């Protein structure tokens, strides 16, 4: 890309400033409302949008970054690769004078813009369609696994491991590339836009909560506005984390390409592992290591569920912000059981509770107890449970 073409892209400083301004607005909003309220269908329209925004910038940003960060890294990897190739293409003298400068702000901006637009459209659709679009845990698991494989393949492509991995790189249709070339002057805009839009298929737990709210809104405009406010809220966190990460990485120069490939590879395995958890596979990292390093946590009884109130065929699982406690539950085999899911001020993705083998999926309230019927299981069998991101996991072992 020539310097002339470079000038056509948005100045990274402008983008960083925009991110910081958004962050500042969020802080002001938080300062004005020290007690972050829960989403209430009866509150006024503006209040709901502010809550959506605050949820995005607080829990949503990091939560979504954990799930969708891989896609963002993939789109950035492409830009970093491009910048590195360009730097390598300079003559020796010019190379010595300049260091690799990653033009990462622009792809991040494209990624986030595409994400905001896609989620706003999704919000409009949800407001209109109701619950028809909810993905089942299995569908979501397959999607997450496919994305994990895509990322691993892409990392191996960057390592030049085998020619076959070149096919893990999305080659957009020619009519699109021509259109992009003529409008963006050769800037690689397709990948971040495509990947940003793709994030609607891998919503994090908090996003799903917001999608549920958009469903409940029952109006195209309100559904769209809610998802827009929420996604806008997640954007500064996404932007700052991604931008700072790539800018720090640029100083690694020589090893940077490998560094990016390794990061994408790790995120790919992380995503794949999340998909395996969503499928209830015993071969996920957590489920494999749980047997090697068994949990020392004793089953705990939540304060609002007393021991005397529990029958012998009842189990208690505390749903906490950082996972499920205890992570291993022992249960008698051959009889129907009731699993009490206890939440007490929980707002993480652990709220979206899944038992893949039972095809059970439920969004739990932040406070309270939800009872789940577990049909009789064979002795020696195990039921795995997970959050909707495949991040927090646990098991029920039947003895």
């Amino acid at each position, binding site marked *: 890309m020539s310097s002339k073409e470079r000038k056509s892209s948005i100045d990274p400083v402008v983008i960083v400033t925009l991110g910081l301004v958004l962050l500042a607005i969020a802080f002001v909003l938080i300062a004005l409302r020290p007690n972050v309220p829960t989403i209430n269908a009866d509150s006024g329209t503006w209040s709901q949008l502010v809550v959506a925004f605050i949820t995005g910038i607080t829990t949503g940003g990091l939560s979504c970054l954990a799930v969708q960060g891989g896609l963002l890294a993939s789109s950035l990897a492409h830009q970093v690769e491009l910048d590195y*190739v360009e730097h390598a293409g300079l003559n020796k003298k010019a190379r010595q004078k300049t260091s690799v400068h990653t033009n990462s702000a622009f792809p991040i901006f494209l990624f986030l813009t595409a994400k905001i637009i896609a989620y706003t459209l999704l919000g409009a659709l949800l407001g209109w369609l109701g619950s028809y679009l909810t993905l089942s845990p299995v569908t979501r698991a397959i999607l997450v696994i496919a994305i994990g494989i895509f990322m691993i393949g892409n990392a191996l492509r960057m390592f030049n491991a085998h020619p076959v991995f070149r096919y893990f790189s999305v*080659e*957009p249709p020619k009519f699109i590339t021509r259109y*992009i*070339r003529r409008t963006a002057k050769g800037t690689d805009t397709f990948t971040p836009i495509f990947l940003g839009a793709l994030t609607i298929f891998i919503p994090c737990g908090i996003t799903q909560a917001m999608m549920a709210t958009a469903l409940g809104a029952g109006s195209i405009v309100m559904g769209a506005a809610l998802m827009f406010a929420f996604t806008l809220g997640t954007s500064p966190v996404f932007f700052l984390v991604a931008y700072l990460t790539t800018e720090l990485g640029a100083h690694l120069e020589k090893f940077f390409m490998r560094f990016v490939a390794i990061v994408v590879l790790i995120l790919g395995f992380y995503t794949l592992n999340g998909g395996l958890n969503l499928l209830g596979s015993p071969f996920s990292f957590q489920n494999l290591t749980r047997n090697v390093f068994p949990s020392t946590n004793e089953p705990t009884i939540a304060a609002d569920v007393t021991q005397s109130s529990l029958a012998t065929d009842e189990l208690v699982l505390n749903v906490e912000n950082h996972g499920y406690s205890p992570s291993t539950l022992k249960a008698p085999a051959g009889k129907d059981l009731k699993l009490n899911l206890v939440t007490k001020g929980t707002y993480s993705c652990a709220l979206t509770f899944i038992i893949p083998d039972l095809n059970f999926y439920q969004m739990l309230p932040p406070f309270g107890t939800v009872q789940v019927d577990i049909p009789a299981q064979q002795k020696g069998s195990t039921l795995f449970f997970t959050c909707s991101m495949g991040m927090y996991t646990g098991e029920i072992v039947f003895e």
Partner: protein
Amino acid sequence: MKKRIFKVTDMSCTNCAMKLESLEDVLDGVKQINASYHKLEMIVEYDESRLTDEQIIAAAKKKGYTAILVE
């Protein structure tokens, strides 16, 4: 019109293919360029009375790629 296939083994991403296709905008006599990162090749359709293989190779070189005529 003439159609030629060039092998470009130093493409490293799909954007390289886009960059090679952008030669359409600078080479006089080119009807169409289809570059593929997956196949590491570039198919050029051009008017042989206005352009030569050597000029295409030289233009690709200017973009930073080594194009080798296959057929």
